[in-house]
C-alpha cells in the first residue's frame, strides 16, 4: 500500500515539476519580447525613469516614426526582401533539381555525387579560401555574393531527396511510357505532389537568408546595399550607427517622445514582425519538415 502511495506521489511531483518548469520557460521566452514591445511604444520620460517593464507607459508611435526617418533602415528592409526572395528562388530551384535527379536509384554515379555533396557537410575550405574565391570571381560588394555561393544546403537536398524517393516507381514509369522526359515529369507530376516538402525547404531557406548577417558582413561594403540584419547590427549591437545619433540630435528634445532605447526597441519589433506574422501559418510545415529531416536523415 505504501509503495503505491509513493508512486502516486512521485507522479504528482513529476506533473508539478513539469508544469512549473514549462511555465518558467514560457516566461523566459516571452518576457524579453514583451519587454521590447512595451519599450518601443513607451514615452521618453517613463523610459528614462526606468518604469517600463511589461507594458507601455506613455503610449506613442514616435519611435516608429523615427524608424522611417533613418537613412538606412527602410532601404535595408527592402534589400533583405530582395535578397531573400531571389536567394530562396535560386536555392530552392537547384535543390529540387538535385534532389529529384539523385532520387533515381539507377542513376549512374549517383553514389559518387551524393558522397561529394555529403562530404561538404564534414569538411570545407573555411572562411578565408571561400572569401578569396568570391573576391576573385568579382562578387565582392554585389548581391550575388549572398545568393550564389553556398546556395545549396546539403542537408536540405538530402531531406528532399529522401522524400522524392518515396514516390512509387510506377508514377514515373507510366509517364515515361507516354513519352514524357524528365523535365516534364518533374514539373508536371513530381512538383505538384511534393508541394509540402518543397514549401518546407523553401521556408528553411527563407528563414536562413532573412536572418543571415555574416555573409553580408563579409562580402558587402556599401551601406545602401546592406540587408536589414546588418543595419540592425550597427544600431543594436556595435552601437556604431551614425544615423541614429543624427536623428536623436536633430529631434526637438521636448516634442519628440523617444530615446535611443525606444528606437532600438522599435527596430527590434519591426525586424521580427515579418517572420512572426508568417510563423503561425507555417509552424505546421516547419515542425513537420524538421521531423522528416531528423528521422529520415
Amino acid at each position, binding site marked *: 500500500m505504501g509503495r503505491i502511495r509513493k*508512486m*502516486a506521489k*512521485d507522479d504528482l511531483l513529476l506533473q508539478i515539476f*513539469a*508544469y512549473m518548469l*514549462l511555465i518558467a520557460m*514560457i516566461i523566459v*521566452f516571452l*518576457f*524579453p*519580447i514583451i*519587454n521590447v514591445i512595451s519599450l518601443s511604444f513607451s514615452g521618453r520620460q517613463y523610459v528614462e525613469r*526606468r518604469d517600463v*517593464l511589461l507594458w507601455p507607459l506613455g503610449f506613442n508611435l514616435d519611435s516608429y516614426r523615427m524608424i522611417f526617418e533613418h537613412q538606412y533602415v527602410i532601404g535595408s528592409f527592402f534589400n533583405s526582401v530582395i535578397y531573400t526572395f531571389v536567394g530562396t528562388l535560386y536555392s530552392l530551384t537547384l535543390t529540387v*533539381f*538535385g534532389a529529384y*535527379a539523385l532520387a*533515381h536509384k539507377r*542513376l*549512374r554515379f549517383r553514389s559518387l555525387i551524393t558522397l561529394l555533396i555529403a562530404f*561538404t557537410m*564534414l*569538411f*570545407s575550405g573555411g*572562411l*578565408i*579560401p*571561400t572569401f*578569396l*574565391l568570391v573576391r576573385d570571381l568579382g562578387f565582392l560588394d554585389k548581391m550575388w555574393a549572398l545568393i*550564389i555561393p*553556398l*546556395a*545549396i544546403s546539403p542537408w536540405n537536398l538530402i531531406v528532399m531527396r529522401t522524400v522524392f524517393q518515396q514516390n512509387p516507381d510506377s508514377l514515373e514509369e507510366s509517364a515515361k511510357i507516354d513519352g514524357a*522526359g*524528365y*523535365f516534364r515529369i518533374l514539373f508536371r507530376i513530381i512538383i505538384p505532389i511534393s508541394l509540402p516538402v518543397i514549401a518546407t525547404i523553401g521556408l528553411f531557406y527563407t528563414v536562413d537568408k532573412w*536572418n543571415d*548577417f*555574416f555573409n553580408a558582413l*563579409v562580402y558587402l561594403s556599401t551601406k545602401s546595399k546592406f540587408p536589414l*540584419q*546588418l543595419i*540592425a*547590427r550597427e*544600431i*543594436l*549591437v556595435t552601437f556604431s550607427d551614425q544615423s541614429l545619433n543624427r536623428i536623436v540630435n536633430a529631434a526637438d528634445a521636448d516634442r519628440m517622445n523617444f530615446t535611443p532605447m525606444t528606437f*532600438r*526597441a522599435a527596430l*527590434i519589433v519591426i*525586424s*521580427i514582425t515579418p*517572420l*512572426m506574422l508568417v*510563423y503561425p501559418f507555417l*509552424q505546421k510545415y516547419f515542425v513537420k519538415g*524538421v521531423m522528416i529531416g*531528423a*528521422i529520415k536523415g
Partner: protein
Amino acid sequence: MDLSNDKGLYLMLIPVILNFIIFHYIPMYGLQIAFKRYNIVLGIDESPWIGLTNFMNFFKSYNFVMVVRNTLTISLLLIIFGFPMPIIFALLLNEIKHKLFKRFTQTVSYVPHFISSVIVVGMLLQLLSPSGGALNIIRSLFGLPEVYYMGSSEYFRTIYVIMSIWRSTVFGAIIYIATITSIDPEMYESAVIDGANRVKSMIHITLPNLLPTITILFILRLGNILNIGWQELLLLQNPLNRQVSEVIQTFVYRRGLIDADFGFGAAVGMVNSLVGLLMVIGANEVAKRVGETRLF
C-alpha cells in the same frame, strides 16, 4: 537501364554539381595558402611556399592558449548545459496532459529559433543595459545594485550559454518529441500493468527508446564542437570581454579577414576544420564500439 535517357537528369545536376565544385571544393584547393605567404598580386598559385610557418606562428603566438582555452571552455559548457535541455524539455512536455497548454508551449518556444542572431543579441543587450535595461530594473526593485553585465569578462560565459540555450533548446527538442511519439503505446500499457508509474515509465521506457537518437545527435554535436553558434558569439564580443570570448572562429575572422593575414587565417581555419572532422570520426568510432547506432 536507360542510360541515354538519363540525359535530362544529368542536365538538372549540372548546376548543382557546379555549385558544389566551385564553392566547396575549389576553396579546399585554395586551402593551400595556409602553407604559403599569400600575395594578392601573385595569387594562389604563384605565392611562395613557406611550409608550416603559418601554423607555427599560430601555435607559438601569445593568443594561442587563450583562444584554444576559450574555445574548449565554451564548447564544453554548451554541451554540458545545452545538450540535456532539449531532452528534458521533450520528456517533460510528454508528461503534460493538457492539450492546449502543450500546444501553447510548443508554439511559444519555437519562436526564438526564428529570430535572427542580430536581433537576439540586440534584445539581450537591451535587457542587460546598465541604463534602463529590464534586468537591472528588476534588480533595483529587489534592492540589488545594478550590474554592467557586458562590461567585463565575468558574466560573458554565463550570458552566452544562457542565450544559446534560449535559442536552441526547442529546435533540438523537436526530434526527441517526434521520437517519443513514435514509441509503441503498448510498451507503456504493459508497463502500467506491471505496476509502473509515470516516473518509472519515463526512466525505463521513454529514455531507452530515445537512446539511439540521443547517440546520433551527440555524435553530430561533438563533430560541430568548435563551430556551433559562433556568429552569435561574434556579436556578443566586445573589447572588454574579448579575453574570454575570443574563440578559434572569431580569431580566424579577425586576423584572417579583417587584418587580411590570409595565409594565417587559412591555416588556423584548417586546423579548426580538421579537428572537427577528427572529432566526428572519433565519436562515430566510439558509437560503433558501444554497439547500437552509428552515423556511417
